[in-house]
């Protein structure tokens, strides 16, 4: 394995280990995300058709909001001494970006997978003809959110206004991701092709990865 991938995988492993011990995602974000899914059926008249119509919007809303929270979680924040250590170890800043994105992606996939059965259970939406077709869209959507969270987190590291600023930076850029994923689901439900929306997701992910690679070195310098 090349040094780049060894470093990226070590960073991802460290992030997941830290998250597993601190339990911010599983202990806080996930339960509240599940609760948010449950709130709408409680607050509406309980009409089956209304809930079925709301299933997809609620799913995308909850995965976006709680997904960003997961990507920007406190356990992913590095202190200045930790950043300095990594710089002096010769950690490739791009490998660091890839590793942190990878760990956030794993957590986001987990969030999506937990929320799907809950939405199906509480909202009873119309069955999707070929649900397997949604898997690439979900993976690309999670990858985009993961990169966005990593970028926003790194851009705001050390700032007192980080908690407010990071979501403000990330939210507008998440629009094409939500659009691509949600429209893919609609198209699949109608039996239409999803190439256009998949390309939108791929293009957004590519743009974010280029931004991540290009900013990795300058951000490394400013964070130390």
């Amino acid at each position, binding site marked *: 394995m090349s040094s780049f991938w*060894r470093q990226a995988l070590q960073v991802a492993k460290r992030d997941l*280990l830290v998250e597993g011990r601190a339990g911010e995602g599983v202990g806080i974000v996930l339960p509240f995300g599940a609760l948010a899914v449950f709130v709408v059926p409680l607050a509406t008249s309980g009409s089956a058709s209304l809930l079925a119509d709301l299933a997809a919007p609620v799913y995308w809303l909850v995965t976006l909001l709680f997904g960003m929270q997961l990507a920007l979680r406190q356990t992913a924040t590095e202190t200045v001494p930790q950043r300095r250590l990594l*710089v*002096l170890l010769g*950690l490739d800043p791009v490998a660091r970006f890839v590793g942190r994105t990878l760990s956030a992606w794993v957590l986001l996939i987990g969030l999506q997978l937990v929320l799907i059965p809950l939405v199906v259970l509480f909202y009873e939406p119309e069955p999707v003809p070929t649900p397997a077709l949604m898997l690439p869209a979900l993976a690309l959507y999670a990858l985009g959110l993961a990169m966005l969270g990593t970028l926003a987190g790194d851009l705001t590291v050390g700032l007192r206004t980080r908690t407010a600023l990071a979501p403000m930076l990330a939210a507008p850029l998440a629009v094409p991701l939500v659009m691509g994923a949600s429209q893919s689901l609609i198209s699949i439900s109608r039996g239409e092709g999803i190439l256009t929306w998949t390309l939108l997701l791929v293009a957004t992910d590519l743009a974010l990865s280029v931004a991540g690679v290009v900013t990795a070195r300058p951000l490394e310098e400013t964070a130390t």
Partner: protein
Amino acid sequence: MTDPIVQLRDIGVRFGTVPVLVAVDLTIAPGEVVGVAGPNGSGKTTLLGVVATLIRPNSGTGRVLGAALGTDDVRRVRRRIGLSGHEPAVYPDLTLAENLRFVARIAGVTVEAADRALADVGLAAAADRPAGRSSHGMQRRIDLARMLMLEPDLVLLDEAHAGLDQDAEVIIDVILERTRRRRGAALIVSHDAERLARQVDRVLRIEAGATV
């Protein structure tokens, strides 16, 4: 003639409009250990940051391990610099052993070397204890274990003696001895003048950001 490990000329650093270092000169030859003393806020930690290539000077010129400060050239030599700041660089949710092993894997060193270094600093019995639930002194020892494991050519210790007991001071002695033998160099900041004088070849005094 052998090139100096550190060579700073007229180095100035400002944080915003506040001057922190003013015209600092410093040369450290291979095999030399230099102490830095001075009152709080005199710029000692900033000087260490400059020598570690982590703080870019606003004025002056300098070379560290042959790389010109303020240029991308420093990336080439960073792996040869070991820094122990006054706040230990550990991940509180990882155990002491996991902290060192993570560093070893990133640096391409064997896990066995990490475990050996952990034992060398007397932490083998506490290997599975989370760093966040370990004392400050134990966390500092992890920083020192990293130095033993990676054997940097330039050792930088900030507040070297803070929170460390007599046993840990012996570890610093070992690190400095090995560094001298490798013809590396060290720069040590400490408020403990007595201990500092025992471990260094000479002391550089800084006041109000300038060498005196």
